[in-house]
């Protein structure tokens, strides 16, 4: 805040530009990208480091290592002993965590804005100084196996989703789950984790996103001080296969303890790659909202309220991904109805759109919701940072967030119908069904002999 008068003069002069320049983007000499978005509504800040390394970068046999490494990042470094990372952030009044997806691994801290240096010091340190000891690894891999049981193995619908992706994607690494196959976790070693860390944890593979009550130039200086000194290193080649052409509908069944069956249908569909030129992904996003964007949207109204063939139903599509996307439909049949009844009813709704299209009224409604959501997002600094990190890590610019809003607003009814006709076809479809098992008929899953970890 030195030279207040001069700053003010400059600001007035640069005002139109300044308004357009929030967020501000920088690149450190080592290739690390920094994006700062000012939000002065509260004296707090969120800092997120996004690594372009997720489960899609894993190879068969070590699935789950991206997520396992995320856990190991909370252990010690050469300078910060085991367990101290979280203690120091907590003592500064901070909240911290991390998340791994198929596309990325990201770490974050939320703090009073004045304590941002605490975050930068620790996060930069573990970017290049992490110590993965055999002892810490052997405990943490057990924690991750518990996480897998909790997230997937004992959750029937999560199991169906995992199996659907495993069948829908054969050559593309979206085939395997982020948490990893249990057998891969059982065979994972500390060396696998070290190898992953050495390969991907480097500043030229990272994007730092800071949102909050901060001055971008001051953040840049701080970033140069802490992150700037970490040397860049060459990244391994990324060999990501294109999913092999599907030649017909695929079907699968998952048995698990449950009361009702469940249906999940996934159509291969493209993700956004060129925000300014693509139009299909926007039309697919609008299509999902027309089907399921509010309590009486098409699917809810027709399947739950009128036909009463489903007790729950949904549609979903992710616009942003490094790899391909899927258009998903799911639902639980009403008591007395079958999965086949539900699938038939969903297909009727899809056919209606292919044949008769959507109405202007539906289109306008989705656009009104999109515009409102764009404002609602601004109530959360964390969410604003998430959007920037996701878009950047998927290979696009944060600036395309504005483009995306404009393009969504420009989608036409004919485009919605066209993407339904092009992508929602059987040759792109995988159908997964949960076959519910009575509780007393299911044997508890047994771990394979010889793989027990010593306590």
């Amino acid at each position, binding site marked *: 805040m030195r030279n207040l008068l001069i700053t003010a003069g400059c600001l007035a002069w640069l005002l139109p530009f300044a308004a357009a320049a929030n967020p501000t983007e920088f690149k450190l000499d080592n290739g690390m990208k920094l994006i700062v978005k000012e939000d002065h509504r509260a004296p707090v800040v969120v800092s997120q480091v996004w690594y372009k390394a997720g489960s899609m970068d894993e190879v068969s046999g070590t699935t789950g290592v991206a997520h396992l490494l995320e856990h190991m990042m909370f252990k010690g470094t050469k300078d910060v002993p085991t367990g101290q990372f979280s203690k120091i952030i907590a003592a500064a009044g901070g909240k911290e965590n991390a998340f791994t997806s198929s596309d990325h691994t990201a770490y974050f801290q939320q703090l009073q804005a004045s304590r941002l240096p605490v975050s930068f010091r620790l996060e930069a340190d573990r970017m290049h100084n992490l110590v993965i000891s055999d002892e810490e690894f052997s405990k943490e891999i057990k924690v991750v196996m518990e996480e897998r049981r909790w997230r997937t193995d004992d959750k029937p619908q999560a199991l169906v989703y995992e199996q659907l992706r495993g069948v829908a994607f054969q050559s593309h690494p979206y085939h395997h789950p982020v948490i990893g196959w249990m057998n891969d976790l059982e065979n994972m070693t500390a060396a696998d984790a070290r190898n992953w860390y050495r390969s991907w944890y480097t500043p030229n593979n990272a994007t730092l996103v800071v949102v909050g009550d901060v001055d971008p130039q001051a953040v840049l200086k701080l970033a140069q001080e802490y992150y700037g000194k970490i040397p860049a290193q060459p990244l391994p080649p990324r060999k990501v296969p294109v999913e092999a052409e599907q030649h017909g509908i695929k079907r699968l069944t998952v048995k698990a303890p449950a009361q009702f069956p469940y249906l999940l249908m996934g159509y291969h569909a493209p993700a956004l790659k060129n925000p300014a030129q693509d139009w299909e992904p926007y039309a697919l996003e609008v299509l999902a909202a027309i089907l399921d964007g509010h309590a*009486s949207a098409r699917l809810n109204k027709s399947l739950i309220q009128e036909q009463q063939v489903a007790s729950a139903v949904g549609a979903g599509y992710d616009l942003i991904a490094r790899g391909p996307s899927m258009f998903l439909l799911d639902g639980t049949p009403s008591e007395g109805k079958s999965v086949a009844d539900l699938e038939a009813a969903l297909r009727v709704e899809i056919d209606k759109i292919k044949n008769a299209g959507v109405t202007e009224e539906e289109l306008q409604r989705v656009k009104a919701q999109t515009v409102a959501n764009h404002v609602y997002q601004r109530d959360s600094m964390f969410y604003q940072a998430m959007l920037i990190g996701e878009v950047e890590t998927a290979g696009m610019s944060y600036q395309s967030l504005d483009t995306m809003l404009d393009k969504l607003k420009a989608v036409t009814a004919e485009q919605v119908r066209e993407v339904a006709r092009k992508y929602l076809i059987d040759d792109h479809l995988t159908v997964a069904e949960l076959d519910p098992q009575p509780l007393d008929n299911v044997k508890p899953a047994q771990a394979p002999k010889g793989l027990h970890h010593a306590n």
Partner: protein
Amino acid sequence: MPIKLVLAVFLLVQTGLALAAPKIQFWRMDNGVRVYFVENHDLPLLDISVDFSAGYSRDPADKAGRAALAHHMLARGAGGLNEEEISKRMADVGAQLSGGFDADRAGVGLRTLSSARERDQALDVMARIIQQPEFPESVIQREKARTIAGIKEAETQPDHIAAKTFMALLYGKHPYGLQSSGEVATVSALTRQDLQDFYRDHYRADNAQVAIMGDVTAEQARAIVTQLTAKLPRGNAAQPLPPVALKIKAETRRIAHPATQAHILMGIPGIKRDDPDYFALYVGNYVLGGGGFDSRLIDEVRQKRGLAYSAYSYFMPMKQEGPFQIGLQTKRDQADQALAVVRDTVRRYVAEGPSEAELKQAKNNIIGGFPLRIDSNRKILDYLVAIGFYGLPLSYLDDFSAKVEKVSVADIKAAFARRVDPDAMVTVLVAADGPAK
């Protein structure tokens, strides 16, 4: 313009040094409705929550699920609009309806843009939902069937089985032991008349509060409250709930289930929201099982032994004594090992209390993290609702840090000794292999 900018920059630096809690305006309308309002024009947003003492603790056991279904039906036909019209009118202006519902409270929430067209249309629909629900018979039948399906599905899942058993053992015949959605038999028997009666008895002005956060003036806020509540009848502020029996029978219940992981819950009836021990227990529980990697439970169960992904404890203070709950999930053949670790950790903590260093760490996090609690409109709205609903002082947020700072090791030890008897707890294990031979 330049001068204004200088001022803005300067003020921001100031607020960065000492954060004032938002200024809460409180008033009571002529019809008895209590209003909690924070005016803020930073974003073109308006958040509202209208809350009634109409949670599931108002259900008798043979009508369990009634309060939840009545609440669920509010937006499914009201003021001459059917459910589809309600949903479309909200979506047409990008507005979002929500509704908090728990043992104590039934709420109707709205998030909308504050621009006149959007705001007015959303408020018009919200006003009908709160004041003129119609409970259409055909929709009731359909939603009953969906509720029953949901109950049946949940009762096959280990987390739900554990939670349901836990609450029943903790609260016995007290309504806190009921299920929010009810039971298959009780929901099947509910009639339209039941729902209308419940609505008439509980959705009353004297039983209502309105929290408003965002881009309107106090004058506009007053008009909004009138629009949302003027048609509610007077009278019948909620009767106090029956007292909770705090001394319960220590018991360990094992329930067979094929899951790969055992779900373990332990606990005892805890505290009321306005309890004088609230801060001592809140800060003390940070050290035991509320403070993530700072907590003893995570340290013993996860960090040292790798027995679980999550292990926690919390007090859930309610109108009456809500539960004190400890929970974790672990591979079914190590359930007893994990349980022994938890019991030992709790016993030692209750006997010894935290160390001075642990207490300092807890305070640093809670006080240092205070600005994060009020850094968005939505978070501030949630505080307005809690302050109103539990009768907390309007200065609650201003006093928060000082109250935390005042807690001593001795306070925590004394409060835990009064409230948490490790030998008098209920323990529920679902899908645990039998006790080690």
